[in-house]
């Protein structure tokens, strides 16, 4: 099961990229995550689903390094990850979007997406103070990378707009662009479809599939829309009250009685 294989639609799923082993996370007296283990394989689209309050966002925060679990280990690319600050986690190649949009409202769309390139931009402060030369060259190179993403997500018209002025759907797209700009190994999406209408969801689904297909990016996403989850993902993890109650392909999970009771429900005739 840890060897790579080819999916029916021609994508390659590789070995285990991220492995969460026995994660337990507590806030004071509340246990938000209770001894959960699951893995994410390279190149796949992994969905994390479950009712509100199940601990899904907390799990993403553990992966990002923002929360530190009291128990358990995180293994990334075959090595145990020591407790590290979120910015070091970002440098390892993990990027994400947020449930309540976390864009930098004081900056333009372009600047926000350029922020995604920060882990790739290395010139020192003295070079930047002079600007001409190394700093300007690096800026132009990274600008080119960012423009490719702007083209990909079709947001050329708004690149100089201050982010605060954008409608919700566009903000979500800009946030996705910022995460993509980092060229991550693992992309975490926290409810990317929240608040969208059917057309917007179709656009976003198409973008997510394209990202996975063209760039080979591994994606883990939290999502409530079951149609989206079942269509997009290769495997699904189901959480409820901090415990894992289901783990497998969409079909396997759809038939799991515990999952049906806790979350999916039954169609009424």
């Amino acid at each position: 099961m840890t060897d790579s294989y080819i999916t029916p639609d021609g994508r390659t799923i590789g070995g285990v990229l991220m492995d969460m082993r026995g994660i337990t996370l507590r806030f004071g007296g509340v246990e938000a995550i209770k001894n959960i283990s699951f893995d994410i394989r390279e190149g796949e689209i992994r969905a994390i689903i479950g009712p509100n309050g199940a601990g899904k966002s907390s799990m993403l925060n553990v992966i990002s390094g923002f929360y530190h679990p009291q128990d358990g280990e995180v293994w990334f690319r075959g090595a145990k990850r020591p407790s590290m600050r979120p910015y070091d986690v970002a440098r390892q190649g993990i990027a994400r979007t947020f449930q309540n949009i976390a864009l930098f409202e004081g900056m333009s769309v372009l600047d926000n997406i350029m922020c995604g390139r920060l882990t790739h931009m290395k010139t020192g402060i003295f070079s930047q103070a002079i600007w001409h030369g190394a700093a300007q060259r690096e800026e132009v190179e990274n600008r080119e990378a960012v423009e490719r993403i702007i083209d990909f997500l079709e947001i050329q018209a708004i690149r100089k707009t201050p982010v605060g002025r954008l409608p919700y759907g566009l903000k979500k797209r800009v946030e996705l662009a910022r995460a993509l700009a980092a060229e991550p190994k693992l992309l975490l999406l926290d409810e990317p479809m929240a608040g969208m209408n059917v057309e917007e969801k179709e656009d976003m689904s198409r973008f997510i599939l394209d990202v996975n297909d063209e760039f080979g990016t591994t994606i883990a996403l939290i999502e409530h829309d079951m149609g989206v989850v079942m269509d997009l993902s290769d495997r699904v993890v189901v959480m409820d009250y901090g415990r894992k109650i289901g783990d497998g392909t969409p079909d396997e999970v759809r038939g799991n009685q515990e999952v049906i009771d806790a979350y999916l429900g039954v169609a009424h005739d």
Partner: protein
Amino acid sequence: MFYREAGDFKTSYEADSQTFPIKFDRYRFWAVLAVAYLVIPFIINDYWANAILVPFLIYTIAAIGLNILTGYCGQVSLGTGGFMAVGAYAMYKLMTSFPDVSVVIHVILAGGITAVVGAAFGLPSLRIKGFYLAVATLAAQFFLVWLFNKVAWFYNYSASGQINAPERFVGGIAVTGPNTDAWAKYMICLVFVTVCAIIARNLTRGTMGRKWMAIRDMDIAAEIIGVNPLQAKLTAFAVSSFFIGISGALFFSVYLGAVEVGEAFGIQKSFLVLFMVIIGGLGSIFGSFAGAGFLVLLPVALKVIGVDLLGWPTDIVAHLQLVIIGALIMFFLIKEPHGLAQFWRIAKEKLRLWPFPY
């Protein structure tokens, strides 16, 4: 119709990220520089230099510094006076200990020393945020003023506790000391402002500026996408203090010639520079110029109107100055929290479309 962007397309990313993308702006900028460097030095007199231009230039440097820390990086600091004091006293010690080294080097070194001190006092910003941080910077302010008052080494054990700038020359022309010409004072400050503004502009439009603004806007998200908050905040404190230190060094050596730390660099100074930044516009280099100009000109204008024109006694005018400045500050904060820079931006936007309304 003369302020157009239509037809002015940028064909490279370099051109797109330049400071003045609109041609008219660029020409205006060069014109201002030409007047500043080529015209004013020949027509300036003592009054204009000492009352208006020299303090304007010096405060602009301080405002740029504080703007970087507070406007771009979002770390509110009320310690500006104390850091200017560091610059001034560093300058004094350097001038008196190494009299053969050029004054220009001393100013830069004074800035560097202030940068280190600023970074040290910036360490609490990693744990303390927002308003609490502003109050914590007051610890720096009060402690530094006390330090320069009490530790006699700083003022070379002089009996008065005051520090005096010895006469120094650049290229044979006096820039400090009582015999300095008005235009010499003006020029040395002008050169420093130009260089500082260019550096500040470069830093804020690149990676560093984006890191700072990310921390300002949402520091948790910033950390998650890869910004090291320690590095970003300490750099902001260091760069900001570098500029503020230069400003303090020039304030002491070129502008006043002699200072007593309590009066010159007390908390009122910190508030003054913060007002310049806020009225001028947070997060804007132009705003630093505008704010400094406004707050240097206003008391002068009020005094001219009140004392010279209307003949009122100076203490009444001084009280009125407080009333009017206080009222103006509240007015600006209500009407345009983004300061004069925003007024300017809106005016330019309207000008772009003129004579059409939209």
